[in-house]
């Protein structure tokens, strides 16, 4: 069985984000970029499935500018067998990513597609769901536990939903997006980092896959949330009522 894992290169989780002065987006130059934490979890799950003997190959896929190869190298260092980089320098929205993945899945024919539940830069939480829709594959999102049956035909997935946990049974091939509590990703060990150097990263472009990137969305402005106002200590109840009435206008 082959597993395809989507990994995204995003601003590192621990970095303090700053908005660009022209409000067109977030400052990404000279900022540490790493693999999206949920994608790490997805890759870790794929590797565990492979280590249990259920899968033969784990392929890491990333779509984006040239530097995505760094992220893919991390994926290879964690243990993925090979990687695919679809190079596209511009902004990508989930629907375009989903269309590219559909084309890739049609070419690679994996039995399982794993993604992180959302990317920490845009928090869209849409890509996995859209891919499943385009492929007409079953999907289980926010997975906190994944168990494959003997014949690799059915996946039993626990999902984290608002009310608690929901268990779904999916026929493979399927799309699963991973949530935080699924596993704890491994570190990239030195021997694996060295081995990763010789692993293949195939380069493709959206044209190669016959996908036209066009977006129905346009980012108009990106601003920081309003600064938290300092609290004010008032000296009497009358003052409080006056403020609530005239300034805050809540009574």
């Amino acid at each position: 069985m082959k597993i395809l894992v989507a990994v995204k290169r995003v601003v590192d989780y621990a970095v303090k984000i700053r908005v660009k002065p022209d409000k067109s987006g977030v400052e990404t130059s000279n900022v540490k970029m790493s693999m999206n934490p949920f994608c790490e979890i997805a890759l870790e799950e794929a590797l565990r499935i492979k280590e249990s003997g259920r899968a033969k190959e784990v392929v890491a896929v990333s779509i984006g500018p040239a530097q995505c190869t760094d992220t893919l190298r991390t994926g290879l260092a964690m243990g993925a067998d090979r990687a695919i980089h679809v190079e596209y320098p511009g902004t990508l929205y989930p629907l375009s990513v989903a269309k590219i993945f559909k084309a890739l899945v049609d070419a690679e024919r994996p039995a399982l597609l794993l993604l992180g539940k959302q990317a920490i830069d845009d928090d869209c939480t849409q890509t996995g769901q859209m891919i499943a829709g385009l492929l007409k594959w079953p999907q289980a999102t926010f997975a906190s536990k994944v168990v494959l049956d003997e014949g690799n035909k059915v996946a039993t997935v626990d999902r984290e939903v608002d009310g608690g946990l929901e268990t779904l049974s999916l026929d493979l091939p399927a799309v699963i997006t991973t949530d935080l509590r699924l596993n704890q990703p491994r570190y990239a060990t030195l021997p694996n980092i060295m081995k990763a150097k010789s692993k293949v990263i195939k380069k493709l472009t959206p044209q190669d896959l016959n996908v036209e990137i066009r977006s129905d969305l346009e980012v108009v402005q990106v601003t920081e949330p309003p600064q938290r106002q300092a609290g004010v200590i008032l000296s009497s109840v009358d003052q409080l009522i006056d403020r609530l009435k005239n300034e805050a206008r809540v009574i």
Partner: protein
Amino acid sequence: MKYLTAASRLLRHSSRNLSDLGSNLQFFCSIRPSSSCLSYPSLRSYERFIQDDCFHRKFTLKNICFGGSGVGILHSLARFQSDGIRTHHRNLASTASIPERNKSFATINSDDISYFNKVLGGRGVVQDEEKLDDANTDWMRKYKGSSKLMLQPRTTQEVSQILDYCNSRCLAVVPQGGNTSLVGGSIPVYDEVIINVGSMNNILSFDKVSGILVCEAGCILENLMSFLDNEGYIMPLDLGAKGSCQIGGNISTNAGGLRLLRYGSLHGSVLGLEVVLANGTVLDMLGTLRKDNTGYDLKHLFIGSEGSLGIVTKVSILTPPKLPSVNLAFLACEDYLSCQKILVEAKTKLGEILSAFEFLDINAMDLVLKQLDGLRDPLPSSKHNFYVLIETTGSMESHDKEKLEAFLAQAIESGLLTDGVVAQDINQASSFWRIREGVPEALLKEGAVYKYDLSLPPEKIYDLVEEMRQRLGTAANVVAYGHLGDGNLHLNISTPQYDDNILAKIEPFVYEWTSKQRGSISAEHGIGLMKANKLHYSNSAETVQVMAAIKKVLDPSGILNPYKVLPTSVLSQS
């Protein structure tokens, strides 16, 4: 309390509140004392007795009059310690070496209090017992003073007035910052007045072009780091206590830390100081010049003199720019010789991008993983004898990664490394650092610890560790870690409780061994109270005489941080 940042709150919760009587009672109720003949109620009252009296200067084991069961109580308490409770205990041996209270020092009276109230405008005069309790006890919970007064000045002028007054009244004082000293340097020995500069925490100016930061001495290191982070700079020093320690204290102790390898010591980064002398004179040496060869460079006297020559009130420090590419590798070696060879290789192959080189041995690693939550072994596949942490900082990610990977590939091929991981994002890097920075905390949680901070020739460092293991056998856990890149060993001997017999096997052997290698008995922690009469191990008699002469010039009445740094015998001679 302003200096209680998240980090210090964590420290407090782990090491202090656990010994808080209230929480202890709950714990005791769930544990049966195994072979002790004491029942719960009596145990509680005995524990209360020991807690109160434990820190009394004149307390020794012999004075407990429980019909000889004194040692038994300590032993049974020690059994509970393995469950994670830390009861108060003292380094009993230090009673012998603590000098008598200097009779020439006055004691506080109500006139003094009203004067201080006048100077500080009614706020900043602390006589509250609980707050004083904290200020009187050091981080290691090894020493406790009995000061009845803490002052919290807000301006240099106030510090000057306070010192002028104390000097005229011959009232001894202790300058205090974050109170994170590991050698009892920041707490009173007797009833010295505590002058806590924590309220002087303003950042005065920052020059974005030169990177020169001017701030007051009470600024917490971590806060300065956050401020500089916003500006694209970093502090030239970094240490585990950054959440609580203040820059004035860092400078007064010439703190070293994790990045000394790259950015050098504070003697190089500090450009200027404003210091208040014992008689209230304000020495304005707050230059912001990189080069200034006009006369004697006095600020160097104050850097590292641990508050015994003057109180630092303002600091001007050169900060390096924050470089974007930081890489961290956590590596494993089989023997100490490989660690040294890796150090040499790292210095030549990584060159200018090397920013930290730390090591821990297997005992340190085991302890950290055992005592601290939320940490996992980066190399779980097998146990390794030595772990090395290498950090690189540079301006170009691709260049640094290439260099690091080439260095690591060669190290593995030549057998210097047996395994290793490279952090792939900032979170992984923080967890690796947490392992190294968490060793002191883990040691504190484990029980009693005899802590030594030595500078030795790098090839000799581990010889000492192995000799100590031979000397102590199974009686103690000898844990070693430190700044291998600087030749600085942190030798820690962990025992369930403090024991004179064990101490006798450690001291003076450790100091004599170090002295023979012409090493330093205190690489970065300073002398404080703990090593005040051990100076001769690392300094000639003539050198110590000159130190005493300088002390006499700057502080004739000896009111600044008495009983510390210089041996009393030398001071009384001059």
